[in-house]
Structures are given as structure tokens and as C-alpha cells.
């Protein structure tokens, strides 16, 4: 399924051959160029302190084993220096967990490259988020995997916040799970979701469907509302100026603050 490059295969082999202490030498041996090795080594010493660079290479080994190449790994550490402080075995176990959750070859590499932070979160916590998405928000297993792939941020998010966002889209906007997945709902902050939706609603361009799911106007798709750049959102959907949206953002934030986010328990029929 996945085609490893020559480079990564030799890297893998050398990673296994060499001792586990992180040093420029070992990095070079693992297939990093000199600049890349410098970068990783510098990064590690910065966060761990020069003396305590007794860190081993097992995290890097694990990443190499996934088929990620040296330059991707440099980027990963760059994005998430905290990863240097994680134990290799733990990282390995977290990667295992992602496999178990059903992320497939390709997806898993994408998730880690895009959001390496996920490897710093305990598997327990990731699983709790997944469990929540499955049982409380009633997403299917397939939908859950798509969510995890497209918005790995969910794994870190506060469950109350997740709940709030889901409820908002479901009850307030009348959007079903499949459409939420397409819209990559969980990538967007609650503030932005509320701002973009309320602005349209108050301008007369969005209506909460009634009990039968009907509206008097045709609502724009959640995906279109959320993925549009601000310019396009303004010109195509809100038909407003940036000045208006800027003021509205401030007003909605204040409304929220003053109302206090008093949400009660909930369930879906």
C-alpha cells in the first residue's frame, strides 16, 4: 500500500543498528543530512537542556518506522518541540492506539505530520474523545475516523467544548452528522462557528429548520459557510462589509460573555 523511499528504508535499518543516544552522529547515521541533524539536535537541547541530552532516538525510530522521512520529521519536531520530551516507548504506544482506532496507512502519517501534538496526548484521553464522538454525538465509526483524520485537534479539546460545538450545529443550526463531517466542523472554534452562523441568521440568510426539518429559505451548506475565506464568506453568503463583521464579532463575543455559557445536559432523540 505505501511505498517507502529508498532513503527511509536505509534510515530504518540504520536506526535499528545504532545505539539509542541522541547525538549528531546517530542522526546522520539515521539518514538525516547535516543541516537536518543540526536542527533536530539543537531543538532537543533547547528543550531538554544541554546536559540532559541523554534522550534516546526511539521516538525518531518510531516515526521513521511509519515511513516518514527525515525532512518530515524535522518539520514535526519543529511544530511540536514537546515531542522531544516524550519517551519513545510511550510515543510508540500512542501510534499503536491510532492504528487501533482505525486510522489507515496514509491517514496516520498525515495526522501526525499535520498535528504532531496528538503524540503528546495520553491514549486514554484520545480514546475518551473518540468515545464521546461515537456515543454522545452518534457519529458512525467511519465518520469518527474521518473526524480524527481531518481534525485531530478534537483529541485535545475539552469535552464540554466539543459537546457545545456539536449541540450548536445539531440543534441550533439543524445540521446532521454527515454534513458536520464534510464541513470539518471540529476544526473551527466555537466563537467562529457562532459568529459566522449568527451573522448570517440575523441578516436573514439562515434559518433553524423546524421540527419537520423545513425552512422558508434555502440555507447555505455548513461546509461552505465554514471553509470560505472571510472575503468569500462576506461577499457570497453574508453580503456584508468587513467593518460590519468586525463589529458583529465583538458584539457576539460580549453577548456570550454576558449570557454565560449556561448549557444544561442534553441528549439526542
Amino acid at each position, binding site marked *: 500500500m505505501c511505498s517507502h523511499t529508498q532513503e527511509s528504508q536505509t534510515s530504518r535499518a540504520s536506526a535499528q543498528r545504532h545505539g539509542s543516544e541522541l547525538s549528531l552522529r546517530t542522526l546522520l547515521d539515521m539518514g538525516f543530512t547535516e543541516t537536518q541533524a543540526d536542527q533536530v539536535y539543537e531543538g532537543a537541547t533547547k528543550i531538554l537542556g544541554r546536559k540532559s541530552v541523554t534522550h534516546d532516538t526511539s521516538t525518531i525510530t518510531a516515526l521513521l518506522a511509519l515511513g516518514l522521512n527525515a525532512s518530515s520529521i524535522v518539520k514535526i519536531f519543529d511544530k511540536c518541540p514537546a515531542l522531544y520530551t516524550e519517551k519513545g516507548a510511550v510515543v510508540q504506544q500512542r501510534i499503536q492506539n491510532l492504528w487501533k482506532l482505525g486510522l489507515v496507512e496514509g491517514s496516520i502519517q498525515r495526522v501526525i505530520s499535520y498535528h504532531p501534538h496528538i503524540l503528546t496526548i495520553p491514549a486514554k484521553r484520545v480514546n475518551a474523545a473518540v468515545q464521546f464522538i461515537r456515543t454522545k454525538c452518534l457519529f458512525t465509526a467511519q465518520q469518527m475516523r474521518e473526524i480524527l483524520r481531518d481534525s485531530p485537534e478534537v483529541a485535545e479539546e475539552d469535552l464540554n467544548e466539543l459537546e457545545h460545538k456539536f*449541540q*450548536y450545529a445539531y*440543534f*441550533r443550526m439543524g445540521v446532521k452528522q454527515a454534513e458536520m463531517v464534510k464541513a470539518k466542523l471540529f476544526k473551527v472554534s466555537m466563537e467562529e462557528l457562532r459568529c459566522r452562523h*449568527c*451573522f448570517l*441568521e*440575523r*441578516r*436573514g*440568510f439562515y*434559518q*433553524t429548520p423546524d421540527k419537520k426539518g423545513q425552512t*422558508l429559505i434555502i440555507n447555505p451548506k455548513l461546509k461552505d459557510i465554514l471553509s470560505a475565506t472571510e472575503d468569500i464568506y462576506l461577499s457570497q453568503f*453574508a*453580503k*456584508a462589509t468587513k*467593518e*460590519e463583521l*468586525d*463589529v*458583529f464579532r*465583538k*458584539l457576539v463575543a*460580549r*453577548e456570550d460573555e454576558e449570557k454565560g455559557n449556561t*448549557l*444544561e*445536559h*442534553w*441528549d439526542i*432523540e
Partner: protein
Amino acid sequence: MATQRLWNSMAAQGVLHNKNFDAMYSMQLGELWPSVRVSLLSERKYGALVNNFSCGDPVTDLQSLGCRDFIASSSTAADPFSPPYSGSHQFYQHIVNEGTGIDLARTFISPNVKCLVFPKGDTSRFKPARLDSAGLLTYYLMDAASVLPVLALNVQKEESVLDLCAAPGGKTLALLQTQAVRFIWANDWSGSRMSRLQRTLNSCLPHDLLSEDKLCITSFDGREWHELGGNTFDKVLVDVPCTTDRHSLIEEDNNIFSRSRTKEKRNLPLCQTQLLLTGLQAVRKGGEVMYSTCTLSQLQNQCVVEQAISLANQELGITAEIVDLQPFTTLFKDTFHFAPDLNVGAMVLPHLTANFGPIYFCKLRRLS
């Protein structure tokens, strides 16, 4: 399904339940309606009408917070050509022809009325006004656009004024801030609202100004008022009851469009016309009447004015002309969004960057 209900009620705060509004106003305002709609459903802005009768000086404080007096800083005559709305060529022509229209409008505006507002796009709020050493409010918070009909009425020294529907008194207070009024008659049919007016005036005015020879407060039905005698006042303000768009948009139960209040709604334009007719009768020849509302509804604005002018002519033998307010509104185009292309009167449209209004006002001059 507690949550479902909760969300629905939250939805209700942001949603217009009344289709009538959308149908009516999108027809009337076209492309401007969405911007007005979102403004009506969002927090409005206020202005601080400075109380000249208080010995405190709130202006410096307010200015340090970023406020400015929109009247003093109104557009200068040097800048008559920057368009209030693009595309109104006729309008420039008009200004060019009249030449000094704006200068003229400016000279009539009372130098004493001060109203401070936060600049466009600034969503800061005013603190409640403090009391000065004499126990008077240093300023009075009201919709800044409500000051416009008062300013446009151009009360001159020693004039007498009738404020036919005066409660709760914001405009009465603004009229008094001109310090030009010799005598003011404040009337309002509603007794309970009249006591609010009394409270407003007491909290802002020293006792000597509240004396009977300067101020008369009554609670008559304004439609019958002319029976008390006419042709006497220099200026009359007819600030009629109307559908308050900001409220009716949100509160479904007390909505004037709801079935239980349909009758009232149907009678409203009639009542407004009658009140305006009273105003035209009460004013002297050459005097001026200001008709104003806080609704966007043409039916309650332009139509009432036109109807009243023709009825006054046919049934009372009173002729009145509409005074052009364009030079006046041009002065304030940096503070308010005025509706473009209004033939009769002027209207402040709410806009998120300057969420004042809606206020409609139209000035009539009695000729005979």
C-alpha cells in the same frame, strides 16, 4: 428534551419569527435590509445628551474615553461633496444649486445641544450618568439619532414649543437643552408614561425651569388637543407612537404583528395622521412641525405625512409644505447612516458600525 427547548429559546433571541417583517422591509429597503436587520437584532448604541443645567462637566471625561460630540464635529461646509451614499447625482446638483444649503442648515442648529457618541465601529458602552452636587444628572442616555428631529426643528430664541407625545421625555429634554425655548407644553396621553417624563425632567432640570410659566405638563389625547386652541406655537414636535421595530422583531408575544394586536396596528397610521393634523393646527402660520417615528415602515412615515398634508388642506384649509432636510442630514452623514433616495423626510437606518435608529423625521412648514 430540555436541551432542544433551550436551544430553541436561544434561537428565538436571534431569529425573526415574523415573516411579515422580512417581506415588508426587504421590499422597501431592498439590498439595505440585511444590514438593517442584523443591526435591529444586535446591541444598539446610545448617545450621551449633555445636561447643560448640571454643574458637572462630563465632556472631558467622556472625551478621554474616546467619545466626541457629533453635533459640534458635524461635517463642515468645506466638505459638501463627499457622498452620503454613492450614486445620488441629483443630490449634488441640488447642493450646487442651493449653494449655501449646508451653511444655512448649520447656522440654524443650536450651539447648545451637545451629544457625545463613541466613534463608528466602537462598541464601548456609557456608564450610567453621575449626579452633580445639586443632584442633577450630568448627562442623559438616549438614542443619538433621536436628537436629530429636535435639532432639525431649529428652535430659535424665545420660541414656544408643543411636544405633543412627550413621554418619557428624551426629546423634551433635548429641546430644553437648546436654552432657547421660552415656553414648552409637554403632553402625553399615557398617565404612567407621563410620570416617567416628570422623573426625567426632575432629574435633569433645576426647579426654576420647571415653573408653570415655562413648562406645562398635561395628559390629553393628542387627537383631541386642538380643541384647546390652535395657531399659537412656533414649533411643534409630533413624536408619534409606532411599531418599535427593535422590540417587535424579537418579542413575539408582545409583537404588534401578533393577532391580538392587529387592530391596534391597523389603527396606528390613522392615529398618527390625526396627531400630525393636531400639530398642524397648533402651529402658527410660518411655524414648523416635526413629525417623527422610530419605525422603518413607510406606511407610518411617508404615507402618514402625505395623508396629513392633503387632509389638512381639504378639511381644515391649512396648507403646509415639506421642508427639504438634505442639507441638514448631510451635516451628520459621518455619524449616521441615512436612507438614500427618500423624497419625503429623512431616515436614520441602523447599521452595525453606527447602530442608532431607526428614526424617521419629516419637517412641515405651515403656510396658511
